[in-house]
């Protein structure tokens, strides 16, 4: 008898079942693992950042669960279905954004929320996914790179939601929508000289935008970013305290629950937008680099999924979702570490807060859907 062989067969038998099970659920294993580790890390950091408030951690876990369900649901939909729905979703999104401006609830000087009586809802979050979806739909059936008039039309398609969100005002989200749209165009083969020209134009437009379009608080954020010591107790306080938190963390950090900047209340907004400062203070550069590697892994996997996709819509949407994820990470960490001005962008899957988690998980759901609904040419 060969008992060792039967054992080998037994374990060999298990793996395909698990993969089969994942395939049936339309889940991507690497993405799932990455998300799981990230979410778990996030809960631990949140526990520390909220001053060991287990209630807040439970709330966040429930949100993550809700996001997880959204992800599974979206993964079941075929990309073609999304492509078909894209124009209608876009229209609904634009109408909702318009409604926000008309009847939305004002919170902290910005009108971002729709009160649906049973829940409060941010249509701009929906637009983060719907805008690139609509652009990908618009460019899917034509030869790439897009011709100039189609490009102009796509830009118009993008400019509408970006502008609507910007006047709420919600600079962070409008920036994320704009970049999501831009990534669709980029993936569609937008010519380099056009990218270069647009960049120059943007610089040229910067002055009038600064002068006439930005609100006072937005302007002060930029000024503060350029020189935080200018106003150490006012607007600059956030950045100064956050840099102190990160810098004092050093290579190995002060240890979980031991960050003095975070635990002693010196760090403002530490469980939402500035949670990376808490993380870096307590886990040091080693922890922060590990976190970046984790994000890098998720983005690379997303780009790989996009590259493996079999139709243009999936490729453009998948690429855009992956790169938008990078924008989250880069803008958040960039602002917390003083590289970028303070704009309200959360650290994906770690910052405390509902809507962004659901949107992000929905994005991962779409990526999984793209990957698991491929037609296998060979067995």
């Amino acid at each position, binding site marked *: 008898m060969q008992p060792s062989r039967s054992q080998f067969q037994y374990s060999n038998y298990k793996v395909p079942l698990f993969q089969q099970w994942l395939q049936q659920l339309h889940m991507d294993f690497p993405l799932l693992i990455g998300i799981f580790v990230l979410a778990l890390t996030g809960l631990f950091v949140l526990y520390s950042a909220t001053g060991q408030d287990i209630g807040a951690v439970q709330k966040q876990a429930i949100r993550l669960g809700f996001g997880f369900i959204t992800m599974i649901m979206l993964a079941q939909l075929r990309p073609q279905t999304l492509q078909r729905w894209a124009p209608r979703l876009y229209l609904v999104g634009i109408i909702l954004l318009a409604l926000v401006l008309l009847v939305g609830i004002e919170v902290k000087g910005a009108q971002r929320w729709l009160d649906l009586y049973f829940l409060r809802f941010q249509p701009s979050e929906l637009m983060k996914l719907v805008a690139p979806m609509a652009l990908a739909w618009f460019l899917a059936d034509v030869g*790439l790179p897009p011709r100039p008039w189609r490009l102009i039309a796509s830009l118009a398609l993008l400019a509408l939601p970006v502008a609507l969100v910007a006047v709420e005002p919600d600079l962070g989200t409008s920036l994320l929508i704009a970049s999501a749209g831009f990534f669709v165009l980029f993936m569609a*083969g937008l010519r380099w000289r056009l990218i270069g020209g647009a960049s120059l134009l943007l610089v040229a437009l910067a002055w009038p935008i600064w002068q006439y379009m930005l609100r006072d608080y937005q302007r002060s954020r930029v000024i503060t970013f350029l020189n935080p010591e200018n106003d150490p107790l006012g607007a600059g306080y956030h950045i100064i305290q956050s*840099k102190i*938190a*990160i810098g004092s963390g050093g290579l190995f950090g002060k240890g979980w629950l031991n960050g*003095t900047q975070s635990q002693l209340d010196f760090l403002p907004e530490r469980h939402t937008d500035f949670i990376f400062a808490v993380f870096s203070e307590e886990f040091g*550069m080693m922890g922060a680099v590990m976190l970046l590697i984790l994000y890098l892994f998720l983005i690379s996997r997303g780009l790989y999924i996009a590259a493996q996709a079999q139709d243009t819509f999936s490729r453009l949407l998948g690429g855009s979702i992956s790169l938008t994820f990078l924008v989250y990470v880069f803008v958040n960490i960039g602002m917390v570490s003083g590289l970028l001005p303070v704009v309200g962008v959360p650290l994906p899957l770690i910052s405390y807060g509902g809507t962004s988690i659901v949107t992000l998980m929905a994005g991962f759901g779409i990526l999984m859907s793209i990957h698991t609904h491929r037609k296998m040419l060979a067995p």
Partner: protein
Amino acid sequence: MRREQLKDHFSETRLFTNRAIISLLGVLVLVALLVTRLVYLQIIDHSHYTTLSDDNRVKLAPVGPTRGLIYDRNGIVLADNLPAYRLELTPEKVEDMESLLTQLGDLIKIQEHDIKQFKKQLKHRHKSDNIPLRFHLNDVEVAKIASIHHRLPGVEIVASLNRHYPFKDIFAHVLGYIGRKDIKDLERVDAANYRATSHIGKTGIEKQYEWELHGEIGSRQIEINAQGRVIRVLQQTVPRTGSDIHLTIDAQLQAIAHNALGLHNGSIVALDPRDGQILTMVSKPGFNPNQFVNGIAYKDYDALRNNDSQPLYNRAMLGRYPPGSTIKPFMGLAGLKYGITNEHYEIFCPGYYIIPFGEKRKFRDWKKTGHGSVDLDSSITQSCDVYFYDLALNLSIDRISPFLKSFGFGQKTGVDMPIENAGLLPSRAWKKKNRKQPWFPGETLNTGIGQGFLLTTPLQLATATAKLANKGKAVQPHLVRGAISVQTKPKIDPLLRKIQPNHWQYIIKSMSHVVHNHRGTARRIANKKFKVAGKTGTAQVFGIKQEEEYDVEKVAIKLRDHALFIAFAPVKNPRIAVAVIVENGGSGGSVAAPMASKIINHYMASNPK
């Protein structure tokens, strides 16, 4: 290339793969940028940010030391620290000081001088320092404030130790008192050492030994949060408690002396001639030093200052009195030393003295009828003035002045107290300088009986008496045990060194006759257990005109004679020397001597060796 609707799947896939790879490179570049930023913040500038982080959370709070206690020679506490609650405000945490003060004033009793004191300190202290507003909160007041404490940021009830002087006025002048420190006080100490100290010695021993009693400031490294609340103590340097001080004074003896003076104003000083330890130092009237500890009310202070009896004035060291006849033993000793007189020299006392070949002014003896034939011994025993007029005239001021100086007259004793008066020892040079007048022989006569310009403090007189008891051996009076460790001064003043032992003996014997002879002026205090040597004195407060009578009944109390008595005991190997001055007390023999006797008797009984 221009066909839009046609799709070239191969080139599209290539384009897309191309863009995906470029994207991935872009992602890597941006992540690398973030890592670079982290390296910059967490590695390169790490120590800078660690410092900033620590600056954020760590504050250094000064901790005041506990003040040393003061004991008497037998270990009885004279200055104690009692626990008490006080109300303190931290200015930087208070938004509207005026309204807070009104609010607190409605709640508990805050007097105007409390607020005045508080505002004075408010100007000069750190905004982060706690400044006391009220001391000695009672339980009800503590409870009232505690109940709304959480609504009043910057208000704190601090349990602290309060200086307490259990003997009140009995030791007021010796101990002095501590009071809230002010800017002037900080000039004489290391201000950094007093950051957490609210009180400082203002007078007396409390001031003199401030350095020993205060101790050294400690500190506490505390961790605070963004709201400034203390989270925990990281490190602390325990303050060094001030040293305890043991006085040479015997509290019981002090109380006896205090009571002996009764309602009289005056002073009693007693010291041990062997080592200069001051056993008793009373100045009457006294005051209650406890009133001063936390700021005396202006009304009370004015009352003390405007009191005719000057209770704040330490008579023992600052009071200047004519020694009167108590100077006679010293004069007699000078006469013997310079051969002006001897054991057998007698003169006739008719009750007055006229300077030979001088003006016809009569210098009176206190005894109108005169003492008849007297020698030096009977002149001391009966206190004959005429004998000493003659003696002084023959000695001349040029010999009297240096001789009295060698006994410490006209000089500070160097006692360990912040202020002391030197008294006044007149001389020809002194008069020329201060009065722009030559010395007149009549002034020598007055000096001879301890009147005229000659002024002495009770401490000086007691020290001179001790020196006499020691037969010239120097005495350094002091109040704190161990204050004088090594006797560096010459043991015997050169002027006194050549005095023959039988001359010392003669004077001391005469002084014992004052008490033990049936004609002695202090004979009423004689006892059989031990021998006392003394000398009475009755000093005129104002001059009596030639033909006038001194009538006790007619003269206002303020102008009555001072009663004096100096004494030491036992005659052989003296252990105590006393000087008593009773202001406007009348006769030294009947008023001052019994007081001294009480002290000596108690001391001899309780210190048999």
